[in-house]
């Protein structure tokens, strides 16, 4: 379209640059702080340009927070959550879309309602369940008298116990249920023409074969989109790991480590706050998901827009 709007174009650029500045300034300041020495950061005037201490600060922050194993942990948990969520979303949606059975809608709604129960609002009892993931079954068996029955018949006391605290399973399992992912997959499966299913059946493929040979290759875009947002989601988990992991040295995740870096009376003991190290650590922790979002921008945006509706 031919349109000459020089003034508006200048205004557009000005507004967008202003917006970028507002968004970048806080992180820029954090970055600058991470490049100076303790003294330079804590003395007026404030530095606005990077110094030369970035590398030493990063190294010190890395060692101080013991980031090595924590990055490995975070990577393990994030990968676990991503793979788990995508797998669960895919197989659940597959069963819901390609099989007919009573109670299909009931299951759909059961999954849907979990959207209204975010982790934050059921945090205390969820923690209690994580301490023994089999406690629901124990309670049910006790209440219905099955435990008593077993105890009387066989003499075995039923005591189901599966402690998830301080384990990768405990970090991953409660996070892998996914209503949004299931819906995204369901949307996608509903666009698969009936005839494709029939052609596969005529070709002799059963349900699992059809899922593996046809649907999964076709849902590559879906997988990429889901993987991106789920990775960011998993990496940035804070509250849950804060609770289930008390053994930080073995199972700690990097984002949780940030809570130890808040330079207050507790951490500095009244000394000069170590902002240069806190900011260096912050940069290290936030970098991987940012890289993913920037490089997978297309998938990320698509995943975000399609999962939330």
């Amino acid at each position, binding site marked *: 379209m031919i349109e000459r709007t020089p003034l508006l174009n200048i205004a557009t650029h000005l507004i967008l640059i202003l917006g970028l500045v507002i968004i970048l300034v806080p992180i820029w300041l954090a970055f600058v702080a991470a490049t100076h020495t303790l003294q330079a950061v804590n003395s007026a005037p404030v530095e606005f340009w990077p110094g030369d201490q970035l590398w030493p600060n990063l190294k010190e922050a890395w060692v101080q927070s013991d980031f090595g194993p924590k990055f490995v942990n975070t990577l393990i948990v994030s990968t676990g959550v991503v793979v788990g969520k995508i797998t*669960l979303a895919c197989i659940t949606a597959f069963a819901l879309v390609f099989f007919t059975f009573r109670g299909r809608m009931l299951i759909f709604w059961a999954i849907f309602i979990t959207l209204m129960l975010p982790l934050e609002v059921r945090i205390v009892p969820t923690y209690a369940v994580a301490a023994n993931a089999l406690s629901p079954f124990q309670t049910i068996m006790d209440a219905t008298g099955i435990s008593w029955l077993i105890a009387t018949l066989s003499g075995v006391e039923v005591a189901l116990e599966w402690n998830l605290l301080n384990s990768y399973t405990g970090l991953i399992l409660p996070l892998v249920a996914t209503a949004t992912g299931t819906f995204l997959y369901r949307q996608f499966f509903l666009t698969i023409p009936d005839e494709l299913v029939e052609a596969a059946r005529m070709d002799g493929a059963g349900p699992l074969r059809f899922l593996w040979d046809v649907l999964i290759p076709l849902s590559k875009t879906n997988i990429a989109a889901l993987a991106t947002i789920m990775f960011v989601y998993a990496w940035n988990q804070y509250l849950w790991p804060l609770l289930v992991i008390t053994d930080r040295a073995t199972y700690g995740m990097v984002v949780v480590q940030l809570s130890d870096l808040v330079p207050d009376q507790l951490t500095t003991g009244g000394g000069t706050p170590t902002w240069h190290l806190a900011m260096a650590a912050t940069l290290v922790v936030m970098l991987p998901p940012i890289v993913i979002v920037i490089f997978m921008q297309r998938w990320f945006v698509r995943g975000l827009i399609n999962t939330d509706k």
Partner: protein
Amino acid sequence: MRRACFKFSWIAAALLAPQLLIIFIFFYWPSAQALYWAFTLEQPWGGGNTWVGFDNFTKVLSDPYYWGSVRVSVIYALATTVIAMGMALTLAIFVDRQLAGYRAYRVGIIWPYAVAAPAVGLAFQFVFNPGAGIFSYINTIAPGWWDLSKYPWQAVTAIVIAGAWKQVAYSFIFFLAALQSIPRSLTEAAAMDGARPLRRMVDMQLPLLTPTFFFLLVINITDSFTDSFGIVDTLTGGGPFRATDLMVYKIYADGFRGFDYSGAAAQSIILMLLVMALTFVQFRYVERRVHYT
């Protein structure tokens, strides 16, 4: 719905089981547990629980600290939502003009989505720090005027700005997607009718964004109730004087620091109802996202 289906078999059951088990154990059971605790008095170290009816709720609702928490949660929700959506909308409309470099602008606005909430909190704690950040300037002019750890309104302002900063990207992505799905022919028709770019923004784009706008409004408010934990925990720790004790934070603090399971459960139930109401509104009234299709 679909005419070509496989017959239900053990395969389907096996495919459904994992997710159903997980949501039962980690969603429904804890929620039921919260409900149970909310109506009973539970000793944290065992010893049974007694039915107390609405006592826990009465206690919570007559607690001035709880109402303080509700008040600041509402302020936080509204303020972050208004700031974030206002900024996101403005930026999206101008990015949508697709002038030179718009891809760079887009990336520049989107990336904060990927920053973890505690990292945002920590970075902003530095920015707002009275001794080291840019606000130390203010304190050299008026010593002691700016201190997050002393003045409640400053602490609230800080979490609002940090929260809004984090939310901009999300709203921006949705606004931009909605703008870009406006059919090109519509814009061209408006241009043929003589509408210039600014005019088109007002007459075409804004009205067509209404559904997205309402959708984001609800989502942002819901998120601000649940996702604020990381920011508060690293930026203010709920203080000073409980000024930033948002509802989620208070549940966490009461449950895990105060071991008041029943009080925390009652608060959880209230927050759950709030989230459910908002989700319901979203699906019931904000369902149709785009009204030109």
